[in-house]
């Protein structure tokens, strides 16, 4: 039993933490929040120089050739710092889409640019309220061009290209397609979201030139979308975990320094017990995240289930941590000046960014039923523990 990260991975995490403490204090997040800047450019460059963007990209495509455990610990630190950079879009989504489904030509073209941070990529699936996955897509791809509107697209205003989920000409099936966002037929605008420290856009494609992702023709776009969302869910869960842990630690510290009635408010049982409960939720999330990281790094058949677990657990923990942080800070927690709302906002953004928790719960049951059916049919072959 070794259900923990290795010493090397922890060292990598420590390095990331140290770097971010120096280069991404919460003032950096706040600067993006309060200005029109879509992201922190210097921090993005720094992350690229440290090789974080290519953590899981093989060396032949310009990456560091590490694995997903390494990417997970960096993601946790990105989350802890509330780093205002397009890390999730470019690394968990665009890069993963290319790695898993791209043709070799596409990989060679895009991955080195993604690893170096020269290009930012994103994933465009959302079109309408109530959508949590690849259902009900109207954007269409035919004859080499893409038409339709995607909203919201995380980092869609700054990304150089997007992997877009679109109805392909072939029947009603979906495909993933690659399109340049700086090219013809693309109009995009930054739009407001609940967390302005991350940029969000509306992207309108009007016969924009595009190509299928991969060389096998129109693939199973719905299945590919699911697979991508699973992978991103595990990694984003680490971001959420980092954010939750940071919010929690700040609250612990604040409530010990804040006095009322002659004693620290953390000595009041009502507050102590809520902190104990919150700690439990974060620990449960951490354990489920580890499971997700294990499944992702082993490309295990349980990845689908593990992704649900990580995402559900971490979304809950981060949301709760943000809510409790404001409440336990009291009046100052509700001021713009204090940082509580940075966590409260980010938690909500991330909890819907890859589909809401309810959709993942539903998906979890579907997958458990499938897995049980598979196990039942395998029972004949018998299994020793």
């Amino acid at each position, binding site marked *: 039993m070794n259900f923990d990260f290795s010493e090397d991975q922890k060292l990598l995490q420590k390095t990331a933490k140290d770097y971010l403490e120096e280069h991404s204090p919460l003032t950096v997040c706040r600067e993006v929040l309060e200005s029109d800047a879509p992201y922190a450019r210097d921090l993005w460059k720094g992350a690229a120089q440290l090789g974080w963007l290519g953590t899981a990209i093989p060396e032949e495509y310009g990456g560091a050739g590490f694995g997903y455990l390494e990417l997970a610990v960096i993601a946790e630190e990105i989350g802890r710092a509330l780093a205002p950079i397009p890390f999730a879009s470019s690394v968990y989504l665009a890069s993963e889409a290319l790695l898993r489904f791209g043709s070799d030509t596409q990989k060679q073209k895009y991955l080195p640019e993604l690893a170096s941070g020269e290009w930012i990529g994103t994933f465009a*699936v*959302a079109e*309408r*309220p*109530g*959508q*949590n996955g690849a*259902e*009900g897509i109207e954007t269409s791809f035919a004859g080499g061009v893409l038409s339709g509107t995607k*909203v*919201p697209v995380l980092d869609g205003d700054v990304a150089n290209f997007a992997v877009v989920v679109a109805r392909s000409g072939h029947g009603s099936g979906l495909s993933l397609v690659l399109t340049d966002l700086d090219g013809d037929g693309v109009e995009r605008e930054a*739009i*407001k*979201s*609940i*967390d302005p420290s991350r940029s*969000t856009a*509306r992207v309108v494609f009007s016969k924009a030139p595009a190509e299928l992702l991969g060389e096998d023709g129109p693939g199973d776009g719905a299945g590919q979308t699911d697979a991508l969302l699973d992978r991103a869910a595990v990694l984003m869960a680490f971001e959420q975990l980092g954010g939750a842990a940071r919010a929690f630690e700040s609250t612990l510290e604040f409530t*010990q*320094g*804040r*006095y*009322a*009635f*002659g*004693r*620290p408010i953390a000595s*009041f049982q*009502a*507050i102590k017990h809520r902190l104990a409960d919150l700690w439990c939720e974060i620990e449960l999330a951490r354990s489920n995240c580890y499971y997700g990281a294990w499944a992702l790094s082993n490309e295990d058949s349980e990845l689908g289930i593990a992704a649900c677990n990580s995402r559900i657990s971490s979304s809950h923990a981060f*949301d709760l941590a943000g*809510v409790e942080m*404001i*409440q336990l800070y*009291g*009046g*100052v*927690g*509700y*001021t*713009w*000046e204090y940082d*509580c*709302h940075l966590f*409260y*906002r980010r938690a*909500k*953004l991330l*909890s*819907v*960014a890859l*589909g*809401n*928790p*309810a*959709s993942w719960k539903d998906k979890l049951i579907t997958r458990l039923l499938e897995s049980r059916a598979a196990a039942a049919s395998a029972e004949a072959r018998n299994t020793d523990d």
Partner: protein
Amino acid sequence: MDFNDTPEEAAFRAEARAWLESNAERKGPDDAPPDLLGERTDSETVQRAQDWQKKKAEASWACLTWPKEVGGRGATAIQSVIWKQEESKFRTPPDIFGIGTGMCGPTIMTHGRDEQKKRWLPSLVTGEEIWCQLFSEPSAGSDLAGLRTSAVRDGEDWTVNGQKIWTTGAQFSDWGILVTRSDPNATKHAGLTYFVVDMHSPGVEIRPITQINGGQGFNEVFFNDVRIPDANRLGEVGDGWRVAITTLMNERASIGGGGGAGSVNELMKLAADTELNGKPAIEDSAVRQRIAEFYVRSKGLQFTGNRTLTALSRGTTPGPEASLGKLVGGKLIQDMAAFGIELEGFCGSLTQEGLAPQDATWQNRYLGIPGLRIAGGTDEVLRNIIAERVLRLPPEQRLDKGVPFRDVPTGPPSK
């Protein structure tokens, strides 16, 4: 058991409505709901509010429960509620006089000397002068009596230094009620003195506080050597806590509230309009369960309000049990907002006008509501009030009793 007025109540309601019909315009179906969360009030709005208050005062609709001789109507509590119900159906400016008429006025009536009453009450009723409350401090919120703003006697005046916070309307107020520490060597509650302060005095500095939702409903107020004449003291020196209690007892949680039911309607509309897996979300069993739970709680709050009104109608004064509405209602709206956001799926993060479903109602509420769970008594303070004052459970152990205030710990021991 019925929801109807008694004949006397019905007659009063008709009278109120008649006056309102001739003096204001009825709201239309598309009028925006009142803003729960406190936005900036500009000077034009203040003027409109003052005009409306003056008009009401002239017809004795301004301070209904006050005695006639101080500009009131001598009305009962239930009549006051009926008036508010009727007034809310008309287009009127925001009520910026609630603190004055609800808290400052009653305190002056109880503790003020005759000349103080004469000086302040008439212009308070007519809205010519606006009042605010200066109690909370950065390190004295839930523990209000831990306040540290100092008042030092200097001849016929007092010199005040310190900082107050969470002051609604300070920027357009003429007067403020102020609790200060006049004797740091006395025990916590014994060393306080209560004043009325002219908000235009030199040394009063007002800075708006920006809330997490961007709104600016509150202010910080700084006192730098502000001089207050001793004539503006309310109550005896050192007796400020008792005076403050009068103010706080009048800070009643709003009665007959439970506006949550309206919000459930919006949520049902969202669920009807949002497609979930190819069907309206309102057909999804999980969505139905959640909305039903919200509905039942919000109706529970509404009917609890009706029970309180019934008590009022019978002449009983509602007590600390009114804390229930704020405690349950605050969390309920937060949960509903979180649910509304999640129901929108990927689009739940949108706040962009024209793109966000339902004009980002739920997102805005999600950002606004934490303030409601804190201002005017945090959830934790409300639970204490219910436990100690409704259920009569033993009070919290107090470390700050019987100790000179200057010796009460206010932060971690220095190392």
